[in-house]
């Protein structure tokens, strides 16, 4: 499946707009896990990262299917938002009809991530990273293991945030309670 199709459908599933490059990366990662599509994710400090995703995003902006806008937060950080352009909306509507099953799968992932962690990219990244680590080590992905490995990552997350990450992986059906 072409990564540009997945990206357009994913942003469409999110209501036509997504905030944050990291958010897109992590949504794509969970989509690749759930749908078995390979986007070449490699490990990185902020969790799995895909060059394909970055390049696809650039291609779609350069060809006027996505629009990027940046805003400076009160902490002097810049948050970028990606919105479907008019042509982006038209092509997404075509793609939704042609790839409805994929669209529904992506929508479920996007909705789950949004409902459980909202715009908190730290929790999203942390969950993706812990899942990636456990999976690559061939370990059972249980609540206990997630918390165990997570504590050693050295990220400054509160207990509540860690609980949210566990909740997210559970809602995505990627983690289970201990047997």
């Amino acid at each position: 499946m072409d990564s540009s199709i997945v990206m357009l459908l994913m942003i469409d599933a999110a209501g036509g707009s997504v905030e944050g490059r990291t958010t897109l990366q992590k949504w794509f990662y969970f989509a690749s896990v759930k749908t078995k599509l390979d986007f070449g994710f490699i490990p990185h400090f902020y969790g799995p990262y895909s060059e394909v995703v970055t390049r696809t995003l650039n291609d779609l902006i350069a060809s006027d299917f996505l629009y990027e806008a940046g805003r400076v937060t009160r902490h002097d950080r810049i948050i970028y938002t990606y919105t479907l352009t008019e042509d982006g909306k038209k092509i997404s509507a075509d793609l939704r009809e042609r790839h409805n099953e994929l669209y529904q799968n992506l929508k479920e992932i996007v909705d789950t991530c949004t409902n459980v962690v909202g715009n908190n990219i730290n929790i999203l990244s942390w969950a993706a990273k812990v899942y990636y680590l456990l999976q690559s080590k061939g370990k059972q992905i249980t609540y206990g293991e997630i918390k165990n490995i997570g504590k050693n990552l050295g990220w400054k997350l509160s207990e509540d945030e860690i609980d949210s990450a566990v909740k997210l992986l559970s809602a995505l059906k990627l983690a289970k309670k201990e047997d």
Partner: protein
Amino acid sequence: MPKKKTNENKIDKKTISIRDPLYGFIELTRKEKELLNCRVLQRLTRIKQLGHTYIVYPSAVYTRFEHSLGTMHVAGRISEQLQLSEDDTRLVRLGGLLHDIGHGPFSHVFEQVLDEITGETFSHAKVTSLILENNKELRKTLKGIKEELSEILTFIKGDVKCEILSGPLDADRLDYLRRDSYHTGVAYGIFDFERVARNLCIIRDEERDYIGIHEKGKDAVESYRMARYLMHTQVYQHHTRLIAEDMFLRAVRFALDENVLDEDSLNPNTDIDRFLEYFLSLDDNSIQYLIVNKSKGKARKIILNLMNRKLLKRAYIIPISTEAIPDYTKRMKFVNMKHEQIEKLENEIASKAGLGPDELILHMQSTEIKLYENLEQASNIEEKPILIKHYNGLIKQIGEESPFSASYVPKKLYVFCVDKEKERVGKIAEEIIGIKNHYSSREQ
């Protein structure tokens, strides 16, 4: 054990200095000097770092050899900054010196030849690894450290030593950007190297360690990213260089068809020894003279044209943007265009124009260097975001806080052809593709 290391270090103290336009002098140890005289290293003196860029920038003729020395020097400088042990520093410097021995004639363009022959991605890094593993002269010189060196050059461990040689702020790029800039005369590649080097730091993680940069060096890194981006748009992606490389690639394909080049000997998956002997006999000069002397067909014609700067010219260009292609369904087709589709389109245009494959070439250009995370370079090593370590200890990705947005240079589809046919070909391409020629409209 520590005593033995000290003795080794005494023996391996820096013994000679070589002048370098960027660093003044580069000092070498006995072992490094010994390696310089190996055949695989000397071969790099006959492979231009920038391939066919000299066709656009005549002074861009420096070789992989100078760059390898520079990379070794910078790798050592980074190792010292990160306070690596003497053994690790020595290893990383050797890695820097040897990291490019797997390059073929005219550098990266030859990787495509190996990709096509093997049917897999066969980067120069893979060839480097094969050479390290099998070259007798190197094995003898690197006795005792070959395995470890091979690990860091093939990025198996993915630790700090690997990142010094291949990462978002690696010695390779920190050297070649400034060196390319110096040799082309294009000033865009200049950045504050010392500021970057002095602020590199190790960012520790459960999984592994990363190289990041302290907040103090953030602006210097922004300048480095800008330098990379501009060097790509101005030098590496220059349309004349692109067509020169495409012509060379086509000549090599013809040479393989004409049995002027031996395809079996160029396949590392058949007989490694035969492959390495043949591959290492090829450099910028030998491959051109081999083709010119042995070929009686199109391969010879193309190489002679290249040598005499009789290049194919632009006949048709379309940027993949709304202005050029308002129809969104058509535009989307170009975004997703695969290699086979480009080849099919080329055949169609060439056939209608009555031109042969040596006279017309299609090229889909995509400026892959962007100003944020995506700093993809010519080698096929995957890119990762640069990490910034703030004063308060927080680690952030540069893309999340850089004032530079990504640079959205549209992809461009080029049709190149022989000079005398460019007007006619431009019209044929316009008719077949169904989109107005951006090149002619710009000229008018």
